[in-house]
C-alpha cells in the first residue's frame, strides 16, 4: 500500500512540469473546440442586437422563449423538427436493414455478380455524390417526385460504408453455426434475423448512429427536393433564414443549437460504438 501511495511522489519535477504543460495544451485546444458551441448556447438566449453589442454577452440572457416563438412563427420550427425526425428515423431503419442484409450476402454467399456488386460498393465511395446530382434531379422530376419525402429518402438508402462495415462484422461469424441452423430447418432469412443479426449488435449500433447523423445533417439533397415550407427539414428551413436582408442571428443560433443538440447527445451516449465504427476501415488497413 505505502509503495503504491508513494509512487506518484517519485515523479521527477521536470517530468511533472511536462505533464502540466500537456494538460495546459489539451485544455487550450479544448477551449478552441468548445467556444463555438458555448457561443451558440449563449447567443440563443439573447436578441440579435445584444449579440453584436460591445462587450458581447458572456452569460445567458432572458430572450430564449422570444427567440423560440419567433422561430416557430417564421419557419414553423415544431413542424420542421418533426419532419427531420420522421425522415431520419425512416431512412435509418430502412437503410440499416438493407445495408446489413447486403453485407451479410457479400460475406456469406458466393454468387454470380458478387464481384460486380462489391466493385459498385467501392465505386460509390470514391465518386463524389455531387456527380449524380443533376441526373438524379432529372429522374425525380420525370416521375413527379419533386417535393415528396420518398424523393429525399430513396436515392441514398444503399449505403456503401454501412455495407462494408456490416460485411466486416459478418465475415468473422462462424459458418458452422449457420450450417447447424440450416440443419435445424431454419430458413435463410429467419437464420439471419434470429441467429446472425443479434451477434453483430456493436456494428449495427454504429451503423444506426452513423446513418441517423448523416441523414439528420443532410442538406443539399433535401434542399433540391423539397419546395413547400411545411415539408422542409431543419437544415433546409434554417438555410432560408440566412438569405434574408435582415438576418435573425439569434433565432438562427437557437435553431442551430436545437439542430445540433440531438446529435451531441447521441454521440456522447454512444461514443464507443461511434468511434469503433469510425475505425472500422482505418486502423486495420
Amino acid at each position: 500500500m505505502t509503495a503504491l501511495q508513494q509512487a506518484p511522489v517519485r515523479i521527477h519535477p521536470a517530468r511533472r512540469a511536462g505533464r502540466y504543460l500537456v494538460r495546459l495544451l489539451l485544455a487550450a485546444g479544448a477551449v478552441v473546440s468548445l467556444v463555438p458551441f458555448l457561443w451558440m448556447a449563449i447567443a440563443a438566449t439573447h436578441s440579435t442586437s445584444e449579440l453584436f453589442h460591445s462587450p458581447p454577452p458572456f452569460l445567458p440572457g432572458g430572450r430564449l422563449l422570444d427567440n423560440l416563438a419567433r422561430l416557430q412563427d417564421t419557419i414553423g420550427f415544431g413542424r420542421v423538427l418533426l419532419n427531420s425526425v420522421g425522415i431520419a428515423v425512416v431512412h435509418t431503419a430502412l437503410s440499416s436493414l438493407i445495408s446489413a442484409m447486403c453485407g451479410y450476402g457479400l460475406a456469406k454467399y458466393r454468387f454470380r455478380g458478387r464481384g460486380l456488386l462489391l466493385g459498385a460498393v467501392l465505386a460509390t465511395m470514391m465518386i463524389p455524390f455531387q456527380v449524380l446530382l443533376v441526373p438524379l434531379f432529372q429522374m425525380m422530376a420525370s416521375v413527379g417526385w419533386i417535393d415528396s419525402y420518398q424523393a429525399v429518402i430513396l436515392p441514398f438508402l444503399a449505403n456503401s460504408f454501412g455495407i462494408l462495415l456490416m460485411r466486416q462484422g459478418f465475415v468473422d461469424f462462424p459458418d458452422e453455426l449457420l450450417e447447424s441452423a440450416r440443419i435445424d430447418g431454419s430458413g435463410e432469412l429467419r437464420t439471419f434475423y434470429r441467429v446472425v443479426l443479434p451477434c453483430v449488435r456493436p456494428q449495427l449500433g454504429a451503423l444506426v448512429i452513423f446513418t441517423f447523423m448523416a441523414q439528420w445533417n443532410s442538406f443539399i439533397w433535401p434542399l433540391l427536393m423539397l419546395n413547400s415550407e411545411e415539408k422542409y427539414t431543419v437544415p433546409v428551413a434554417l438555410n432560408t433564414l440566412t438569405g434574408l436582408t435582415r438576418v435573425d442571428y439569434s433565432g438562427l443560433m437557437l435553431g442551430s443549437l436545437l439542430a445540433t443538440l440531438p446529435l451531441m447527445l447521441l454521440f456522447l451516449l454512444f461514443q464507443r460504438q461511434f468511434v469503433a465504427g469510425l475505425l472500422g476501415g482505418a486502423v486495420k488497413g
Partner: protein
Amino acid sequence: MAVPTTCDRPVAPTRAPARARRRRLRPTAWIFTGPAAALFALFFAYPLGASLLQSFTTEDAGATHWAGLDQYRRLIDDPAFLESLVNTGIILVVQVPVMIGLALVLAVLLNQSWLRFRGTWRAVYFLPAVTTLVAYAVVFQVLLKTDGGLVNQSLGAVGIGQVDWLNSPAWARVSLIASLTWRWTGYNAVILLAGLQSIGKEQYEAAAIDGSGTVSTYARVILPQLRPVVLFCVITSTIGTLQLFDENYVLTRGGPDDATLTPVVYLYKVGFQQLDFGYAAAIAWVVVALIAAVSALQYVAFGRERRR
C-alpha cells in the same frame, strides 16, 4: 466446413449435389443483396452513366446535341474553374498538412498513459465533427462577422483593427482554412490515437529501458510505425478536399470573387443556377478523374508500405 457439408448430404458425396446446392443458394443470396443492388443500379449506376453521356452533350433551346469534347475544352479557358482548382491546391498545400500535424500532436498528447479522463478529452475534440452543417456555418458567420463578431471584438480588445473575415478574398480563404481545421482536426486525431494505441506497450517500455526520453521514443520508435495510419488520414483528407462543398458553400457560397470556390461548388452553380447540365457533368468528371488519380497514388504508396 467439412463436417456440416457431410451432414447436409450424407448419402451421395459427389460433385453433382454440390452444384445443385450452390444453385439453390444463389436465389437466397439475392434476397439479401437484391435490395441494395437494385438501389445501386437505379440511383448510382444509371445516373452515373447519364452524367457521363451528358458531359458530351450541349443543350440548345431545349434540344440536346452531341458536342464531343467541347464541354471539356471549355474548362481549359474558364477562369472560374481554374480559380477553383487553385483554391483546392491552396487548401491541399496549406490546410491538410497543418491539420494532420495538429492532429498528430493532439493524438500523442492524448496517448500519455498517465492522462485521466481520456474519453472525455476525446469527446470534446471530436464534437466539431458531429455538428450539423448549417449550425456550423451559422456559428462561424456570427463569430466572424466583421462588425461586432466575437473574433473581431476579441482582436479589438488587444488593439487589432477590424478584419473583414468573410468579405475580402484573402481573409475568406483564411476563414475557410481555419473553420475546416476546427471541424476535422479532432476527427483525424481520434483515428491517429487509435493507431497509436494499437502499438504495443512493450515498445514504449523497451525504448524507456534503453534510456530513450518520451520525445525521442515517439520520434524514432512510435511515429515511424504510425505511417500507414497517417497516410490513411492524408488520403481521406485529400479526397475530402477534392470533393469540398459543404463548408465553403454554406460559409461563403464560394465567394467573394470566387476566392473560396471549389470545383464541386462550381459544378453546383453551373448545374442548378445556370442550368448548364452538360458543362456541370464535364466538371464532375474532371473531379472524378482527380480523385481516381489520388486513389491510384494511394495504392502505389500503400503497396510500397507493405513491401517494406
